[in-house]
């Protein structure tokens, strides 16, 4: 009991320090950042990248280096999970799902209805990542969750987890090469490779292709994680 009391008192001290520190930060952030956003980010963000969604502009142009290694961390984590788990069980999906958990028929029927809608929505989010909220990472997660529903619909299918991870690795190398093309056309690594004198519509080609590649990579990675858990928890 005393241990819990000491922990609560220490956390209260932390909260007090945070409250004192936050008093200035928010005022400073609200005044200084507002002028920076109005003068710098809003006018220049679209002109420099061709992306209306400024989060995508940061992810795929200004800070592409960060995003690439974020995708790399996902790949490394997937490889670790596959290495730890029992990946060499060869069994059909029906044995994983149907024996252990009694899936209701209503759920299966509605998954058949929802599955194409989810896939379409995922591809929409991926392809329109530069115009509307979304992008490669978010759309990839939606596509992956649509693929997970497929496990309930199609029981006879067999998932080859090694093939998924191999495809993901090659896709990651392709993303790195695609992002590195800009050294030949613009002279700097990891930015839009289409020269600046083209129009914005042409420059969005780069954003769409990179969003699609990252989206598929994320979808494959999450699919591999799910399959590894399925085979481990059997």
């Amino acid at each position, binding site marked *: 009991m005393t241990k819990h009391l000491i922990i609560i008192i220490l*956390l209260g001290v*932390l909260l007090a320090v945070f409250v004192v520190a936050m008093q200035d930060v928010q005022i400073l952030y*609200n005044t200084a950042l*507002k002028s920076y*956003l109005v003068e710098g980010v809003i006018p220049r*963000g679209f002109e420099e990248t061709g992306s209306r969604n400024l989060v995508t502009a*940061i992810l795929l142009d200004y800070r592409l280096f960060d995003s690439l290694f974020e995708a790399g*961390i996902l790949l490394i984590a997937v490889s*670790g999970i596959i290495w730890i788990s029992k990946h060499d069980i060869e069994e059909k999906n029906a044995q994983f799902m149907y024996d252990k958990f009694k899936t209701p028929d209503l759920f299966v029927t509605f998954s058949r209805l929802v599955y194409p809608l989810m896939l379409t929505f995922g591809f929409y989010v991926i392809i329109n990542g530069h115009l509307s909220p979304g992008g490669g990472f978010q759309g990839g997660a939606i596509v992956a969750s649509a693929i997970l529903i497929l496990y309930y619909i199609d029981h006879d299918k067999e998932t080859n987890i090694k093939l998924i991870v191999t495809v993901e690795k090659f896709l990651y190398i392709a993303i790195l090469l695609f992002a590195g093309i800009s050294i030949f056309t613009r002279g700097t690594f990891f930015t839009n490779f289409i020269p600046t004198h083209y129009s914005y519509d042409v420059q969005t080609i780069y954003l769409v292709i990179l969003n699609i590649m990252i989206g598929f990579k994320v979808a494959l990675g999450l699919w591999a994680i799910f399959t590894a858990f399925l085979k481990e928890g059997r």
Partner: protein
Amino acid sequence: MDPILTFVVILIGFYGLSTSTNIIKSVFCVTIIESGVILLFLNLGNLDGGSIPIVGEGITMIADPLPQALMITTIVIGSTVTALALMLCIKVFHHYGTVEWAEILRREEGK
């Protein structure tokens, strides 16, 4: 007021992390801390009168896009870390037959 509430969420995660006796509950607490950090960053980037960070005609004020871009990284890495930790939990359960911290420590000392 809002950033302080998000910090309270982080502190709840800390409290759970320091008092939980189950490995899976510890993993949950790490996830709670991560959610608090995400809420804190999004709160700071949300300015008064700002809309979503998509520029177009008639948009004069937007939320700061940089914290949102950073939080995508946090979400992706957080989900993979959670998955890896849970997979290790499964391995620990197969090896020891339990996921209680005290029980595992007792068995390791008893060897």
